[in-house]
């Protein structure tokens, strides 16, 4: 059911409804999508906005996610503002087109409702899908709550289309946990959203610009390919400041501030956890509990994984005694999940750095509770006291 609301705050929406509502407010030129659990209801609700004439969007229903991203690429190259949504196998099927969207520097915004990858077949949350796409050249924002998913979608449009960036943005939210749970959130007025995202004016000739014909998607041999990739790398580097600036501008219209990460009770912390998305909420409860017990616990929730803010995270962790990085995806290096290995690598820049462990948790939607987070903090306290790491990398929330 499409949302009709005049209220601003205390609106109860699921994550997917909030994403669809943000898309309605953004009113993109083209949306091309193929349904897949748990992202399906984003498109279900958005298509009812299209049917009701609430948006001007050209909705392209395609036969697969590969075609969905292909249609998005074509439309974006033609100068349209383009959005889509997917999950899991759908994202995996888009794989080759993800790289093309990024390489062609097309500012497509996609909601990625995180879900495990087969096999075994599973429809529930983990980050295997988006983490697998981490090298595709897309900016990645991770959302803890329904509010953050809504806010990130709106900010993503401005980040993607910024002239220093021109890269596609993936806004991740946890499948079912966030996508299908109703939370209270504050919506922004239509006019304010419209003003915030502005009108998209491509600053380069698009496919439909007959006055300035240009060739898109041409072959680039060894004499020119690496220059295009170098530009892409630079855009990703510049995206970091753009994300920060857009976050500040967003605060002016919403009252909610966004940066590269959220620091929770980190000021005097001695032990800390780093964790993405909805599980950060659970872990904050554990931080409060540890504080009650007299332990100086803190938490960092990175919001931005691509570009990876390794210096900022390193700066926030360098004086901590023991850190646990929790990954909801394994990268099968037998060394640790993607967040763990990158944070550990970033800390190498600092002379003083904490003891650090990596833990994979919650794959395929396995519950991660406050007691799981507390057990991790207890282990960190032992490491802090003994200075010894028994297991660098391990799984938790698994039956032994």
């Amino acid at each position, binding site marked *: 059911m499409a949302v009709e609301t005049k209220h601003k705050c205390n609106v109860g929406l699921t994550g997917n409804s909030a994403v669809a509502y943000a898309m309605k407010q953004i009113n993109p030129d083209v949306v091309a999508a193929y349904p897949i659990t748990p992202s399906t209801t984003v498109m279900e609700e958005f298509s009812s906005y299209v049917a009701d004439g609430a948006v001007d969007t050209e909705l392209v229903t395609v036969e697969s996610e590969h075609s969905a991203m292909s249609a998005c690429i074509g439309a974006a190259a033609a100068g349209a503002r383009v959005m889509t949504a997917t999950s899991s196998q759908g994202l995996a099927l888009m794989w080759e087109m993800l790289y093309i969207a990024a390489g062609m520097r097309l500012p497509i915004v996609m909601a990625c409702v995180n879900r495990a990858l087969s096999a075994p077949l599973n429809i529930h949350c983990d980050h295997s899908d988006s983490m697998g796409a981490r090298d595709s050249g897309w900016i990645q924002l991770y959302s803890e709550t329904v509010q953050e998913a809504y806010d990130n979608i709106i900010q993503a449009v401005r980040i993607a289309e910024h002239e220093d960036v021109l890269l596609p943005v993936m806004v991740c939210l946890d499948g079912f946990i966030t996508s299908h749970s109703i939370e209270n959130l504050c919506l922004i007025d239509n006019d304010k959203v419209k003003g915030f995202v502005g009108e998209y004016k491509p600053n380069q000739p698009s496919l439909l610009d007959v006055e300035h014909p240009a060739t898109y998607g041409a072959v680039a041999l060894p004499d020119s390919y690496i220059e*295009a990739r170098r530009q892409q790398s630079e855009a990703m580097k510049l995206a970091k400041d753009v994300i920060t600036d857009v976050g500040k501008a967003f605060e002016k219209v919403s009252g909610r501030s966004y940066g590269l990460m959220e620091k929770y009770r980190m000021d005097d912390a001695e032990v800390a956890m780093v964790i993405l998305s909805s599980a950060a909420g659970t872990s904050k409860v554990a931080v409060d509990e540890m504080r009650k017990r007299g332990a100086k616990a803190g938490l960092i929730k990175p919001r931005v994984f691509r570009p990876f803010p390794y210096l900022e995270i390193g700066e926030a962790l360098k004086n901590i005694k023991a850190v646990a990085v929790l990954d909801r995806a394994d990268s099968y290096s037998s060394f640790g999940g993607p967040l763990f290995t990158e944070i550990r690598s970033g800390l190498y820049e600092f002379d003083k750095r904490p003891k650090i462990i990596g833990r994979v948790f919650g794959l395929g939607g396995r519950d991660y509770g406050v007691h799981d987070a507390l057990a991790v903090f207890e282990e960190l306290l032992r490491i802090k006291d003994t200075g010894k790491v028994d297991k660098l990398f391990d799984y938790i929330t698994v039956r032994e």
Partner: protein
Amino acid sequence: MKKGWKETPIRGIILEAGSAHGYSTGGWRKLQPTLDRAKCIDCMFCWVYCPDSAVIVENGKMVGFDLEHCKGCGICAMECPDKVKAITMVLEEEEKEAK
């Protein structure tokens, strides 16, 4: 000197029309088409069928081949009408030696 990455247009787009013409693709040809102008009836079959637009036509007359782009596939020689057969494919080295 070619442009550095800061000066190259982003997106890998090419802003100049027809720039592929400046790129030589004829380097790996094994057989080379040769034209016997006396036999040619300017029917333009070769021009129509050449997959690389490598048949040169001037003022309605077939005058020869663009060897920077001809890949030596022999389609032109094949399509040239049987009663004419104005195009012969010859080994690239032999043609070079002959010159």
